[in-house]
């Protein structure tokens, strides 16, 4: 019997926090969006495809994707010193790998598409919120994509699997403690484009977590699609 029987905020185990989506929040960008899981808010802006300088970084067979993720200093309870840090660079890279798999820049050799993700308010699950915002912004920017993607965090608190982890759950220490897992799935291919994990989980439980993640991402994808279909006026 798991010690985590009721979630801190009363949600069902497979329920995400309230999702908020806003499109075109940054007029200067070619595409932009805001995506929030409850009080974890992510903003994303996309610029490109555009010429890439310096020349030696260009890829003559297709365009490249660059992703930068950062948190605002006041987005967390203990201030994050402004400027790049290792965690931010890692999240930038894994997000870049995830999104590079779904964009199709074959028709844009020698160009770059820049994706900038910023977090103004954080309550765990920031990298997955950032990915969802980025997917919306890329679509809005008219960047060709093979498919869309959706991301979510799955947690294991003692032996209980939950969808969309909050900070309190991340800090859970009873029983087997907290395991925090991030997943990003392709909307059509259902391929895993991003996954990271911290904690302690058996292979069988991880398979369960992955299934739970895929189901949650399907639902999130439907919301992303709806938002894009409603927000036609630009």
């Amino acid at each position: 019997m798991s010690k985590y029987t009721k979630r801190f905020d009363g949600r069902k185990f497979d329920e995400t926090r309230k999702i908020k989506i806003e499109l075109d929040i940054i007029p200067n960008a070619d595409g932009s969006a805001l995506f929030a899981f409850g009080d974890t808010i992510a903003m994303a802006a996309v610029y490109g495809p555009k010429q890439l300088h310096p020349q030696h970084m260009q890829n003559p067979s297709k365009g490249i994707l660059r992703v930068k993720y950062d948190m605002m200093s006041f987005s967390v309870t203990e201030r994050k010193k402004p400027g790049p840090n290792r965690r931010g660079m890692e999240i930038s890279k894994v997000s870049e790998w995830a999104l590079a798999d779904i964009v199709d820049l074959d028709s844009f050799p020698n160009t770059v598409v820049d994706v900038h993700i910023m977090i103004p308010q954080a309550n765990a699950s920031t990298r997955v919120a950032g990915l969802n915002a980025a997917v919306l912004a890329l679509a809005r920017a008219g960047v060709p994509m093979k498919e869309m993607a959706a991301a979510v965090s799955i947690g294991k608190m003692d032996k209980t699997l939950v969808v969309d982890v909050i900070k309190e759950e991340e800090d859970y220490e009873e029983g087997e403690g907290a395991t925090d897992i991030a997943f990003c799935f392709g909307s059509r291919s259902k391929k895993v484009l991003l996954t990271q994990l911290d904690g302690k989980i058996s292979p069988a439980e991880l398979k369960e977590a992955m299934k739970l993640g895929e189901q949650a991402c399907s639902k999130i994808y439907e919301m992303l699609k709806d938002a894009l279909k409603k927000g036609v006026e630009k």
Partner: protein
Amino acid sequence: MNEEERVEEKREERVLVVPGESIVSGEDYLPGDWTKREGKDIVSNRYGLAEKSGRLVKIIPLSGIYMPRAGNVVIGTVTDVTFNGWIMDINAPYSGFLPLSETPRFINKEEIQSFIDIGEIVVAKVDAVKGKGVDLTIKIRGLGKKEDGMLVKVNHSKVPRIIGREGSMINLIKQETGCDIIVGQNGLVWIKGNSVDEELFAKKSIEEITRRSFVAGLTEQMEKWFKENKGK
């Protein structure tokens, strides 16, 4: 059926799709612009309007960077001068290159910078689109450097609305504002009037058109707008 009704009818056949969405299923269909066949399905590779013309399925993008096509008139800014021509920012993924050989009169190498300098505006035509850049020409009448006037930037997808069918909208704007106007397919519009008020009026009307671009009967609406706003 007038122009607006025809546009309206066509619009009904179009469905807004997102990347990765299946547009139609069936072996008969052919994948057109921004679509791909995946098994039985024709799948969208772009956020836009899916359109079926017979067996061909394609996507009309609603957004995205301007893609230069041969024959397009574009307006750009010179960013660099080389020994044999000018490099221009044409608001596209690739810069444009105007070679010395494509000027209306012979320009020798010493005159290059005095003929067109960095930061100046040029109205040019796209000759060819290559992997790394776009070749431009200003040999035709009406093209060339613009030394006066101002530039307004719009989303390039709104350009067809600003020009209108057979130029009906752009002619309306020129008539009502008294301005000289050139619309670049790349979303840059050059305006020159006889007074500040004329130019401001033209700029405002273009911004109004881009705001209402999804509406049917836009030309009639703008005729009304011009009457209501003239002299304000």
